[in-house]
């Protein structure tokens, strides 16, 4: 089973502050994804990556940046956090270009006050 680890598990941030969510996967998957989950919206894709050095915009990228410095690590960055970014964030990895099986981390609960 693929191992996807997110940190932190919980985060409280202040409006206007910078937040970095980290994700590490140990299965050598090419593709990694960041989703957020909100009541009434299911999971929505923020950014994704094909491999080290690549980042692509998902369906709701505004207010977020992403960084893929290596095959294993994919970060989500909120440069100026806002209360509307309070959510649960999930990282996932997969290896076959969009139709592959995804493996998810346990999620990060972010509260922006």
């Amino acid at each position, binding site marked *: 089973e693929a191992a996807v680890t997110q940190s932190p598990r919980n985060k409280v941030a202040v409006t206007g502050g910078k937040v970095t969510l980290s994700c590490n996967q140990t299965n050598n998957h090419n593709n990694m994804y960041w989703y957020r989950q909100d009541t009434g919206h299911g999971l929505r894709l923020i950014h994704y990556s094909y491999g080290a050095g690549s980042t692509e915009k998902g369906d709701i990228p505004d207010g977020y940046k992403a960084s893929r410095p290596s095959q294993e690590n994919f970060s989500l960055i909120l440069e100026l956090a806002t209360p509307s970014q309070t959510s649960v964030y999930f990282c996932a990895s997969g290896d076959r270009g969009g*139709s592959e099986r*995804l493996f998810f981390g346990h999620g990060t609960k972010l509260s922006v006050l």
Partner: protein
Amino acid sequence: GDQVEQSPSALSLHEGTDSALRCNFTTTMRSVQWFRQNSRGSLISLFYLASGTKENGRLKSAFDSKERRYSTLHIRDAQLEDSGTYFCAAGGIASSSFSKLVFGQGTSLSVVP
């Protein structure tokens, strides 16, 4: 954009009964994945299908192999531990090389004694 319509949105079952969840896709998809989200928020992968059916214990999933526009998840002999929110995610438009997973809104399942 592509959409996944999941039904029902909520379901209550008595222990020992059977039921089925369904996902309809607005376009042809390459694959479907089913998840259960438990009370701690973790997304547990149940099935990944590119075609046909798969079975695991009391759960069985099918992906329409002809038109590839719907999938079902059958729960047999429902138990209390089956409670949770079930998501389907459809992947990969058949004609494209890379396509993002699209999630349904989820079915909230409650199994009662």
